[in-house]
């Protein structure tokens, strides 16, 4: 699997935010996107995830034989944005169960995924009862319950304590070791051997 981004250009409200972003990622590689606040990290990630229309350039996902994947890029991605995408009125189990069924490709069970983020004890609590950091960890568990070859994560460690950041780093390492492609906007180096960086500047 290979992800090729060529000359990506994105605009918001007819104002160019980023332009000419190009990079290639092989299976197992990670890309850390850095840049100042407001430099367009989130915009870039959303563009790659197919949530924003591209103004210029292309996003291509190729398999080993160089053939392009069928369907849209977004269908192969897990996206973790600034918000968690969980319903406060539902329990942690109900939230994860929904996303697992809705996203398909079930991977870990909900119990296993929550174990990975040290939240097994919260499984039957309403999502609204959790603290900000715990909510973030539940949404990280969402990435684990269904299998997608690409993770696009935007400030994934916001609100996490040092221990949880380490736990997330380990999850990312395991994901890349398993042949996944990770694109993360973060200020912390994740310490993955196959890590590339992209600095978005003005």
């Amino acid at each position: 699997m290979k992800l090729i981004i060529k000359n990506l250009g994105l605009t918001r409200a007819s104002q160019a935010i980023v332009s000419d972003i190009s990079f290639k990622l092989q299976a197992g590689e990670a890309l850390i996107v850095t840049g100042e606040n407001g430099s367009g990290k989130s915009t870039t990630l959303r563009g790659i995830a197919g949530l924003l229309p591209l103004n210029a350039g292309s996003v291509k996902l190729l398999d080993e034989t160089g053939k392009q994947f069928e369907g849209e890029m977004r269908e192969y991605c897990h996206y973790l944005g600034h918000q968690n995408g969980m319903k406060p009125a539902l329990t942690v189990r109900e939230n994860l169960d929904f996303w697992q069924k809705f996203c398909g490709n079930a991977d870990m069970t909900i119990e296993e995924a929550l174990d990975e983020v040290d939240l097994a004890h919260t499984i039957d609590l309403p999502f609204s009862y959790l603290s900000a950091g715990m909510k973030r960890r539940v949404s990280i568990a969402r990435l684990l319950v269904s299998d997608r070859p690409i993770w696009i994560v935007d400030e994934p460690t916001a609100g996490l304590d040092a221990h949880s950041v380490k736990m997330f780093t380990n999850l990312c390492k395991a994901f890349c070791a398993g042949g996944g492609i990770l694109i993360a906007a973060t200020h912390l180096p994740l310490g993955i051997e196959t890590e590339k960086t992209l600095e978005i500047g003005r």
Partner: protein
Amino acid sequence: MFALLKREILLSIRAGGGALTGVLFFLAVVSVFPFAVGPDTKLLTHLAPAVLWIGALLASLLGLDRLFAQEREDGSLDLLVMQPHPLAITIFIKAIAHWLMTGLPLVLATPLFGIMLNLSPLGIGATMITLLAGTPAIAFIGTVGAAVSVKLPRGGMLISVLVLPLVIPILIFGVAAITGALEDPAPFTSPFLFVCAITLFTSVIGPLAASVMLRHSAD
């Protein structure tokens, strides 16, 4: 997709009052009406189908603005949009769930409100059937309004303005069908079939239009 239906229904039960708000609004419209018209039962009976339909129609508009706005606020909308399922199907299911939790209670409450308006059992039956066939269309058309106003903080008013003109035909045919059932020369079947046709038509067009709208309103 069944998972989505289950989640929507659970949410509307947990969040509380979704169904009840509509029914209470319906009750408010229907119960205030006789006070305004006066104690003329004949006139009330004559107006009852129209009042019931208007009440149900306005009650159905409540809560439509939250259909996508809420999903957008907690970030779920991005994830719903990203999945391989056709977005129109996702929206269709959301509309069905919305109708089950807000529209269906209105239909079920109709007999009680029909009695309040001195409507005959036949009239009540006809009202229930036309509402059952017609109110889903309001939810389907409402998805378009909800998609248009998804980014607006106070989208409710805009939705009413956008959706009301489009649901007028359903109101016309719905009331015409009830009148047809109660009074002899007028037909019941043809206006009723029009109501069914509009619902089927909007069940396709509505979610499709809303999905195009949602894809293009990404930010």
